């Protein structure tokens, strides 16, 4: 593997020349005519996805709404299992047949959910394209990378000659910063490193200048120095194609740098939506606040204690009524359990699904004002190891520790099935 590479980012160096090449493809003439140019690019309304399993119906996505505006980057953040990937697979029509999808996904006013796969194939790659997390599995190992790019081009443009497609493939590879693109176009995926493969995937995603690129954790499989390269290539791709992007990630740093608007998901639903600065500096949903507070900061000289969120996300089978975050929420009151709150307006173009946003507002983004940093002290309140003479027991840290729940004999648990209650779920 050559590491001599292009100094800095090859993408930006070659970017300028490729604009003409890409736009000369004459894409717009091939857009399906029944799309309304005035309609929003992508609008998702009340999207629900359910998967039947042995344990019951898993309600993985529970009413997602969003609208993507032209040229905008919408960041979707959430922890694993929050439904952010399933949402995007539903938009692309890529879920397995067993999935039950309801609601509406409109691309330029055109409903996608009732499309057959054949019709969706005309939109995938041209109207909406996708970048997956793992470039090892999203490229076909038995075809040369050039062939895979050319396939994407020629499937949407039957008139494109093989020679022209090859030329475009080389241009695209140069654009995403692959050195010696003319030679590397004949390589197989296994001849590339992970970062290089992800560049190829991005080249494929931008090949037809789609209106929307959905990037699902595009850098999660990569090392941080390679991630920085890929993020720069993504920026280049957006500039070159003018596409809007849905950027799905768990990394709040990437979203801070790339997104215009942010949608925070929890337990299959958006719990807060707003402009990127509102979300980071003035969050209104306790979950968002807690998520930001639990992040150790690279740029902080003070060693502030992190604020973990107690407990773990709920199971998405047979969810009880009420706010799904309530069991972990420090601002929880009885009303929270009555009904799941809808997204309420909390500011200009800023909504949060919480009935106690005023309390969150007072924290002004400081998680420690709401969340209990002592919650781990609480669990550490036990006596120190008796044999460890060197250890000085820290007294006075065990305030508020609830005693162990009235100790049933341990054997009482034996044979019990069902979900485990987290120990800290015992908090009053």
């Amino acid at each position, binding site marked *: 593997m050559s590491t001599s*590479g292009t100094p800095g980012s090859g993408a930006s160096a070659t970017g300028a020349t490729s604009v003409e090449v890409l736009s000369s493809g004459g894409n717009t003439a091939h857009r399906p005519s029944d799309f309304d140019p005035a309609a929003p690019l992508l609008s998702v309304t009340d999207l629900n996805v359910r998967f039947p399993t042995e344990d019951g119906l898993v309600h993985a996505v529970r009413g997602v709404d969003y609208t993507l505006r032209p040229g905008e980057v919408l960041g979707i953040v959430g922890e694993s299992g929050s439904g952010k990937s399933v949402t995007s697979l539903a938009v692309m029509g890529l879920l397995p047949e067993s999935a039950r999808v309801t609601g509406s996904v409109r691309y330029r006013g055109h409903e996608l959910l009732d499309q057959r796969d054949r019709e969706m194939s005309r939109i995938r790659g041209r109207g909406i394209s996708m970048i997956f997390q793992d470039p090892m599995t999203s490229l076909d190992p038995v075809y040369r990378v050039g062939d895979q790019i050319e396939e994407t081009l020629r499937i949407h443009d039957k008139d494109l000659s093989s020679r022209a497609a090859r030329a475009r493939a080389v241009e695209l590879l140069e654009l995403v910063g692959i050195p010696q693109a003319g030679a590397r176009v004949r390589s197989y995926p296994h001849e590339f490193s992970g970062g290089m493969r992800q560049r190829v995937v991005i080249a494929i995603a931008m090949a037809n200048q789609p209106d929307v690129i959905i990037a699902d954790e595009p850098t999660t499989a990569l090392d941080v120095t390679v991630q920085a390269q890929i993020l720069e290539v993504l920026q280049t791709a957006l500039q070159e194609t003018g596409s809007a992007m849905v950027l799905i990630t768990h990394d709040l740093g990437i979203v801070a740098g790339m997104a215009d608007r942010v949608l925070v998901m929890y337990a299959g639903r958006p719990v807060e939506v707003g402009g990127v*600065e509102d979300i980071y500096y003035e969050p209104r949903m306790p979950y968002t606040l807690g998520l930001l507070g639990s992040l150790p*900061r690279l740029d902080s000289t003070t060693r502030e204690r992190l604020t*973990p969120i107690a407990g*773990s996300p709920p199971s998405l089978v047979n969810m009880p009524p009420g706010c799904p975050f309530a069991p972990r929420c420090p601002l929880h009151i009885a009303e929270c359990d009555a009904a799941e709150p809808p997204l309420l307006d909390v500011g200009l173009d800023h909504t949060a699904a919480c009935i106690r946003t005023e309390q969150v507002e007072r924290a002004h983004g400081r998680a420690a004002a709401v969340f209990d940093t002592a*919650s781990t002290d609480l669990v550490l309140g036990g006596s120190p190891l008796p044999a460890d003479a060197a250890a000085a027991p820290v007294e006075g840290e065990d305030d508020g520790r609830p005693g162990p729940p009235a100790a049933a004999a341990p054997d009482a648990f034996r044979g019990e099935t069902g979900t485990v209650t987290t*120990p800290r779920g015992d908090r009053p």
Partner: protein
Amino acid sequence: MSAPTTGRTSGTDGAREPILSVRGLKKHFPIKGGGLIKRTVGAVRAVDGLDLDLHPGEVLGLVGESGCGKSTTGRAILNLQPATEGSVRFQGREIVGLGRKQMRPLRRDIQIVFQDPYASLNPRLPVFDIVAEPLIVHGLTRDEQHLRARVRELVELVGLNPEHTNRYPAEFSGGQRQRIGIARALALEPKVLVLDEPVSALDVSIQAGVINLLEDLKDRLGLSYLFIAHDLSVVRHISDRIAVMYLGRIIEVAERDELFERPAHPYTQALLSAIPLPDPRRERARQRIIISGDVPSPANPPSGCRFRTRCQKFAHQLDDTQRQRCIDVEPELEDRGVGHLNACHYAEAARVL
């Protein structure tokens, strides 16, 4: 190379004896080739001459990208994978070359927590047995009642409900499993804990709880940590001193804030610069150093300075005679006037955050 080098990673406690001291550590994995008869045709030089000191009560962060040899270092220090060459001393006692039996008493003092709490706990053992196993193996239990009390204590210590010890790992969340792994490691009252990416498999809201726990345990039990991780935000939060690894060697060591505020090695600068900050205004205002290419193969590292093939300084700032030095001479880990140790001929402190 096995001779002691200048790499005494002295910190503020230069006068104190390190509890763990590593010199010239090498771990090479042979590459077998040929047909029926397997011959060694080369070696993956996963760790290739590494020096570090861990002082009592200190958290030393060991960071680097995947494949830089940080986990191999952790395992070689514990003698889980015998070192090819070099010396690892725990409280002055040489570990390299000890057999399994000879290692056993030392295992009480140095324990490890692994990255993946789904793979490091036996799914067929209830939590009680997992935490009790080290106590039984080392014959530290007087009777059944004492064992029960001790396991209960350990499980409470890591913030789990002691009523749950007869459950199996599958019933616990990732964060809870990692706490079980920590309880098991603490069972023998070790002095040093090697933490190999202990929180990278966890979601951030859960990760924060485990980090807080590790900090508290360190203070309460007077532990020393070798904290191996790729996430520099976590490392900055928990470490006192940080060593940066690249391709099997340490390229920079400094006190925590010194490293983040005044990194001197081009790789450290690029690494810090590459990490996105969860702060939109600061993140958008940053100038990013983007280095090209990927990490070279540790089977065939570049001559001279290992980082030169990706180095932004080598590519853009040095002249040909300066470059020749990078190609010919491998830089030692020493203080070049920036106030801490680094392995770059042309080290210059710079602010990148």
